[in-house]
Structures are given as structure tokens and as C-alpha cells.
């Protein structure tokens, strides 16, 4: 046996990865998904080259060639001389209402889409993982409370909740984060001390809550609630959408992680690891998380798709990015009036509507294909065929 064979013989993880990759290559759906996503990544990365911004300071503002209300078809010439000087001669995809260049909007909209999708998923993931680990690991009453909380969030229709949050969140968010931060900090410190002293988690939790309560009483009663630390975050409308979607999206991950932790915890090999003297943290990191990661990855990839769809829906309803921002959903909302309104030929201005829609559709399709294909491949019960 040469070295290469030896390496693959000895490393089960490598073998698994190779097997997964082989199955990925064989699945036409996942190949298509990856191709689509790669395509969009290229567009996003090369946006400044593919569509050089007319105003370098505000690349996300779609330039408008005049102010006329009627959209012009693909191939129309750029009329404004200033814009011509920047290198644009032709509207490749035509213009939408207000003479916004569709091509520009779609290209830069890719970046917006990635930004929204990835950021929301990352934030939801972090929150979700944290909650899920706490819930699954400690169990008991912490688990009960967190699960109820998660259920309640899941009970709300995401779109409406996001809308309400976008409206409710003020432009500048004055966070009195001093007090909540202090509470969380105290709680965590007590928990850590308890863990260090090998107290039962229920006991440390009760002590933690007790200390927090004492602190709260002192703060409000004795000290008269002085502001500890105030932070003002300025939120644009788009940021508000991001935050709202993240706040609505984390319960899914919590459920998945918690489920995995509970499932793996009762497996025999965890018992064996404990018997061999592994610490809890090590068990979580080495045994539970790798198994749980598969489900989380699948979920994240499907989530990106649905987040982009929800954000587009919000834009369509007028909530989200400011007017003229490079955002696919917003572009379709302009087009709405031009497809209906009882004209003879609803398809006269098809480009205002079909093209941005195609971008949204194919982008989401790519992620969904990938997520679905991965789900099929990584499902361990279905693997060995």
C-alpha cells in the first residue's frame, strides 16, 4: 500500500467526506444548485466591474436616466450625458418606472441578497445555537422555559412579526444595555463559578437567579436606577429588516440543536465517553456538534433561500430598503403597476417584472437545491445503499 492508500485507510473522517463528495457529484440536483450559487457569487464579487457605479459613494443607489415614468425596453440608449460619461451607453435590461436601470439594480441586488441572506442566517444561527445548547445541555426547567419561549416565537407568522418589528424598532435604538448586560453578566459569572465548584447546574442556576434578583432590587430600590451605559445604534430600514428577520428566525436552529443534543446524549457512545472520563464540554464539542452540524448546515442553506424570499416580500410591500436601492423585491414592486391596470398587452413591460423576478427565483432555487440535495446525502439512515 502506498502512502495515499494508507492515509485513506486510516482516516474515517476523510473517507466520509470523500463519500459525501462522490454522492454530491452524482446528484444532478446538487450540481445544479452549486452551479447557480457559484454564478451568483461571481456576479456579486465582480459587481463593480460588471456594473460600474455612477456615484462611487452610493453604489447601491440605482442610477436613473431621467425621471420619466414609462419604462423603456432592453437595449434602449442611455440619454443622460453624465451617465454616458461614466461608461454606460445602453440599458441592457431596460429601465423601470422612474428610469431606474434594471441591469444595474439586478447586479448590485445580488450583493444585497447575499448580504441579507448570510447576515440573517449567521445571527439566527448564533442565537439559535446558544439557546439550543443551553436548553439541551442543562435540561430541566431551563429547557422548559426556553422551549416555551421558542414555541411562542414560532407561533407567529414570520412576515407579520417582521413587519411589526420593523415598524416598532425606532430609527435610533437607544439601548439601555447597561442593566440587561449587568444581569446577564452576573448570571453567567455565577454559573461559571458553580460549574467550577462542580455544583449541580440547578443549584448554580437558582443561585444565579437569586443574585440577579438581589441586584435588581438594589438597582431599582436603593440606587434609583442610574443609567449604567447607554448605546445608540442607528438603524437603517434595511438593518431593521435584517434584525427583524433574525429575531424571527432563530427558533428553528434552537430546535434542531436541542434535538440533536438530546438524541446524542442518550447514545451509548456518549455514556462510554463519560465513563472514560470525558468532560461535558468535550463531549459536546467532539461528539454532539459534529453530528448536529449536518442538520444545521442543511437548515442554514434552505434558510438563506426563504429569508431572501421574505425580504423580497417585505420590499414588495414597501418595507425595507429605501426607494431606488438595489433590491430585487423593490424592483418588482415598481413593476406591479405596469403589468396590471387593464392594458391591452400586459406583457408590454415584461422586463420590469420578469427579469428581477428571475433573479430572485434562480437565486433561491440554487440554495434550495443545494440544501435539499445535501439533506438527502447527509441523512445517515439513507446513506449506505
Amino acid at each position, binding site marked *: 500500500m502506498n502512502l495515499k492508500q494508507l492515509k485513506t485507510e486510516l482516516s474515517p473522517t476523510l473517507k466520509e467526506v470523500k463519500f459525501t463528495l462522490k454522492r454530491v457529484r452524482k446528484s444532478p440536483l446538487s450540481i445544479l444548485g452549486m452551479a447557480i450559487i457559484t454564478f451568483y457569487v461571481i456576479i456579486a464579487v465582480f459587481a463593480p466591474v460588471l456594473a460600474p457605479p455612477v456615484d462611487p459613494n452610493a453604489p447601491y443607489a440605482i442610477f436613473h436616466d431621467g425621471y420619466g415614468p414609462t419604462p423603456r425596453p432592453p437595449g434602449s440608449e442611455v440619454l443622460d450625458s453624465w451617465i454616458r460619461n461614466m461608461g454606460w451607453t445602453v440599458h441592457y435590461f431596460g429601465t423601470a418606472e422612474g428610469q431606474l436601470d434594471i441591469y444595474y439594480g439586478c447586479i448590485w441586488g445580488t450583493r444585497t441578497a447575499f448580504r441579507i441572506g448570510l447576515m440573517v442566517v449567521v445571527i439566527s444561527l448564533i442565537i439559535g445555537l446558544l439557546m439550543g445548547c443551553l436548553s439541551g445541555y442543562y435540561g430541566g426547567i431551563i429547557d422548559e422555559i426556553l422551549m416555551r419561549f421558542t414555541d411562542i416565537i414560532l407561533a407567529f*407568522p414570520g*412576515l407579520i412579526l417582521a*413587519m411589526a418589528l420593523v415598524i416598532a424598532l425606532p430609527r435610533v435604538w437607544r439601548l439601555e444595555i447597561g442593566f440587561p448586560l449587568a444581569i446577564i453578566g452576573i448570571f453567567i459569572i455565577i454559573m461559571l463559578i458553580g460549574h467550577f465548584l462542580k455544583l449541580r447546574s440547578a443549584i448554580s442556576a437558582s443561585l444565579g437567579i437569586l443574585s440577579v434578583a438581589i441586584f435588581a432590587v438594589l438597582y431599582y430600590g436603593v440606587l434609583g436606577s442610574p443609567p449604567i451605559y447607554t448605546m445608540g445604534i442607528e438603524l437603517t430600514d434595511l438593518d431593521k429588516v435584517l434584525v427583524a428577520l433574525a429575531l424571527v428566525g432563530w427558533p428553528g436552529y434552537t430546535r434542531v440543536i436541542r434535538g440533536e443534543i438530546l438524541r446524542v446524549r442518550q447514545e451509548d457512545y456518549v455514556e462510554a465517553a463519560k465513563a472514560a472520563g470525558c468532560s461535558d464540554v468535550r463531549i459536546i464539542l467532539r461528539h454532539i456538534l459534529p453530528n448536529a452540524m449536518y442538520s444545521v448546515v442543511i437548515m442554514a442553506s434552505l434558510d438563506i433561500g426563504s429569508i431572501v424570499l421574505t425580504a423580497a*416580500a417585505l420590499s*414588495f410591500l414597501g418595507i425595507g430598503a429605501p426607494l431606488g436601492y438595489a433590491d430585487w423585491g423593490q424592483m418588482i414592486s415598481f413593476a406591479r403597476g405596469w403589468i396590471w391596470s387593464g392594458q391591452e398587452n400586459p406583457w408590454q413591460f415584461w422586463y420590469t417584472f420578469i427579469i428581477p423576478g428571475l433573479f430572485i*427565483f434562480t437565486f433561491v432555487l440554487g440554495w434550495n437545491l443545494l440544501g435539499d440535495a445535501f439533506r438527502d446525502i447527509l441523512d445517515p*439512515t439513507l446513506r449506505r445503499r
Partner: protein
Amino acid sequence: MGLLEYTIRRILLIIPTLLGVILLIFAVSQLFTPEQRATLYITSERQMRDIDSIINQYHLRESVFTQLIGWLQQLLQGNLGYSRTGGGPVLQVLLRKLPATFELVIWSIPLTVFIGIYLGTKSAVHRDTSIDHITRMISIIGWSLPSFWLGIMLIAIFFQGLGWFPPERMSQPTFNYITLSGNWHWYTGLLVIDGLLNGTPWITIDALRHIILPTITLTTINIALIVRIMRSGMLEALGKGYIVMAKAKGLSNKEVINKHARRNALIPVMTVAGLLTAGLLTGVTITETVFNIDGVGRWAAVAAGGGGTVPDVPAVLGFALFAGIVYVVANLVVDIMYAYIDPRIRLG
């Protein structure tokens, strides 16, 4: 334990969750300014000018606890506030707009579920062949379509282009008949059925013509959920020991799939279907907006301030409460159905 015991236990468990929902809504309402919260109780222009007295009357600047108690009191009386966009008390507006949404859901759920089950079974049985790939592709495509995009396109093709299926819930003549003729009686709240019950079959046909496009929109998008879960359920069931046993008994492939595997695979599908129903009841916002149907979803969208208008706070809160309750009840129903179908759960 028997089914009855289980049901009672589950119902009791709902109460803390419902309480949680109510509390959460209250917490969200605290994010609004007192002025915004006062709009709950304003029913006319005149009151708008005298907003301070309303604030004082309902203690809206006082501590959180006083407000909570006050709000709960109002809640128990059925007073969810006055909806500006709905033009009436929130509860009434909700009940008035509910049938339109309900009718939409009633048509699309069975369609989604049945087609989904069929495709999911086919997909699982012919795993990794082209049938499988095509079915999954179709359902994923449906899931990836933006609902507003699909809706608008369908309208453009089938209404503006071909003139077959109009948007909205009913045509002008139907509307006139219902509101003006004095002969119309709402039996079920569902246009299609009530058209027959009232002896006016042309209304039923009209309703069907209107409802077909939004139903197709919803079905296309949601089919993927059912297909996916049916497929994985079937694949899991087909790998079990009783399948080999069934074959060893001499049963045909079709019998094995339909009788043995499917029954087991349907269990998780029931859960998803139940949750989907709940999701649809509260989530058809975009479809209702695009098709201009006067249902609960569109009301919520307008209330939440679509397009930059001032938000109708009482409506948003009221709708949120409605959504929470629907979801909790749906979970309950699903759990009970689950216990009914799977004897292992029921008989412990």
C-alpha cells in the same frame, strides 16, 4: 392512557403557552410609544385630538404592571381596540375578514396534501431515478418562487391574457347580489358552498373562477413541504423489518407500499399538514395582497404599515394574538390526531 385522557392533558398544557403568547404580545406593545398605544381606543377624529385624556384614562404612561392589568381587563371583555384600517373594533373586523382567508385555505390545503402525498410516494419508491429527480425538482421550483411573482404572472396570463380567471374574491354582480338583493344568507361563510345553499349556482361558479388562481399559487409553493416529508417518511418506512415480512407473506409490491409503508409515513405528514394549515391561515398575506382579496392577511399587511403609512397598532396586535392562538390550537389538534393515528402514542 385513553385518547380522552390524553386530549384533556394536552388541552391543559395549552394554557401556559397561551398565556405566554398574550404576554409576548403585550411586551411587543410596550415597544410602541404611549401615543401609538392609545390608538387602540380611538374611534374617531375628535378623539385623536384629545389623545392625552385617552392616555390617562387607560394609564398608558404608568408602570408596566398597571398597563398589563388594564390590558388584560380589556382583553377579557373582548375589547382588542379599534382598528383604523378595518373601520371597526378589532375583534369584529377579524371575524368579518376571516371567511375569505378561510375559504382560500380550505381549498388549497387538501390539494397540496393530496398531490404532495402522491408525488412523495412516487419519489420514494423510485428513489434516485429520474422520476425522483423530476418530482423533487418540480416541488423545489415551486418552493423557490416568490409568491407575489407567481401570483402576478398567473394573473397576467390567465386574466389579462386569456380572461378566464379573475383575481379578487367575487365579481361585481355577485357582490351586488349579496349585499343588495336581500335574498342572500351566509350559511357557512364559504362562497362556493353558500352559492349552492342559496340556490344561486352561478355564484358558486363565479366564486370558483375567482378562487382558482390564488389556490394554484398557494398549492404550487407549499407542495414541496409535503413532498419532502412524505418522501423521507416513506424511505424510512420502506427500510423497516415489517416490509420484508409483508413481502414474505406474498403481498404484492403495490399492497406493501400502499398499505404498510404509507400508513407509517403518513404520521409525520399529518403533523406538517396541520402546521401548514395554521401557517396558511396566518400567512397568506402576500397572496391576498396580490389578488386583492379582503382577508385577514391583507388587513394585517396594511395595518403593519405597508408602503410607509402610519401603522394601525391595534390591528397589528390583534392579528398577532389571533396568529398565536391559531398556531397553539393547530399544535393541539395535530398532537391529538397524531395520538389517534399512532397507537404507540395513544396506548403508551
